[in-house]
């Protein structure tokens, strides 16, 4: 086998990263508070945790409202993931929305921002109960992924969906490089390499679109939306499909190589525009992370746990994609030799 070491490296990176991406637990978090509306008077809140291990003792619950803390009068741990807290809500809470916060020794501080809504606001309750007793506990450090509301377990898709696009971009970059070489050398083999890089790149583009669509359904509630990033990626796919159509419409191989080579340079420039420049302009809004002024996953990943899995996954997929392109190109060369 030719150059087997980088292929083995690709497989090992992919294997390790995929197992980690599926197996690393999410960090504990509060995911649900019931009811979502409170009024002055006695209130009982039920808090649902995810991957939490609430102990019977030492769990404290409070509401944060306009800089004030309102502590639960009674906390009952029903199960490691279920806590009931009773409050005497005073008149005059400052803000409509309160954060619900749980503090204990194992988890430190868990919170849902703006989880409960209060009708009617005042100048503050004047309550400062328990503020000093709640020294923030230090959580036990384990290797976990960030647990973010809306995303939850689907955060693992970062290590599958995003590398598809990275692999595609690398293949399209290989393709444009081969095209430039073909234009300079008039060598049909360079042109063939450009074609096969685009074909494998389109496979990854297709998988990126479909996986993105599934992820969108689970997080944004729709398979497709007129988002600048989504439309940009769809247009990119169409641009490269048009590259194949253009090739199919020219009979003479040398003429085809020149035309396709020039088109490919424009196609790559448009790819960079549609995937990286336009969605990042401050003038546009986007749902997609890291676009239209949104936070990327780097901002969630405070302790670099996601990165240690995400980077090997990207590297592994890029190497696999390059290997696939290599196989495809070698097969095409053999085919030509057979046809001669």
């Amino acid at each position, binding site marked *: 086998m030719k150059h087997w070491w980088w292929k083995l490296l690709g497989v090992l990176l992919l294997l390790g990263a995929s197992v980690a991406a599926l197996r690393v637990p999410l960090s504990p978090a509060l995911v649900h508070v019931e009811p979502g509306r409170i009024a002055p008077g006695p209130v009982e809140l039920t808090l649902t945790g995810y991957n939490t291990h609430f102990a019977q003792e030492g769990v404290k619950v409070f509401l944060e409202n306009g800089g004030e803390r309102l502590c639960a009068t009674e906390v009952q741990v029903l199960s490691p993931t279920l806590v009931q807290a009773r409050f005497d809500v005073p008149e005059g809470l400052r803000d409509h929305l309160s954060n619900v916060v749980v503090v204990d020794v194992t988890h430190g501080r868990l919170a849902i921002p703006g989880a409960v809504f209060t009708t009617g606001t005042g100048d503050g309750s004047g309550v400062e109960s328990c503020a000093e007793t709640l020294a923030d506990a230090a959580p036990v450090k384990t290797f976990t992924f960030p647990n973010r509301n809306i995303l939850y*377990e*689907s955060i693992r898709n970062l290590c*599958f969906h995003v590398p598809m696009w990275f692999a595609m971009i690398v293949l399209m970059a290989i393709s444009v490089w081969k095209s430039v070489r073909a234009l300079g050398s008039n060598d049909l083999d360079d042109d063939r390499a450009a074609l096969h890089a685009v074909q494998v790149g389109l496979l990854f583009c297709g*998988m990126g679109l479909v996986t993105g669509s599934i992820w969108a359904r689970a997080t944004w509630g729709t398979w497709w939306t007129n988002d600048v990033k989504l439309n940009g990626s769809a247009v990119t796919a169409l641009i490269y499909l048009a590259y194949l159509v253009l090739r199919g419409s020219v009979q003479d191989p040398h003429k085809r190589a020149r035309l396709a080579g020039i088109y490919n340079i424009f196609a790559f420039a448009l790819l960079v525009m549609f995937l990286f420049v336009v969605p990042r302009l401050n003038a546009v809004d986007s749902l997609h992370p890291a676009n239209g002024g949104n936070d990327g996953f780097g901002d969630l990943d405070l302790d670099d746990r996601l990165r240690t899995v995400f980077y090997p996954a990207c590297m592994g997929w890029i190497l696999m994609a390059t290997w696939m392109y290599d196989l495809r190109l070698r097969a095409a060369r053999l085919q030509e030799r057979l046809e001669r």
Partner: protein
Amino acid sequence: MKKLLTSLPAALVGMPLWAQAPGWVEDSLYRSGKINAVVVVVAVILVGLAVWMFRMDRRITAMERDRAKGS
């Protein structure tokens, strides 16, 4: 190749039309911390790779047949 060329744009254009997925698909995507969204994504990638492998296999089989005929 032709089939692929015609089916891909159709899939792109048709994407918003899938919005009415059956209820059980919706439910299973949201249940238990949305882990099924990950399962489906991984499945799609594996299916994509499998399709590619089959096409590659067909290509090589055709070459083998040509060679058998030639010699």
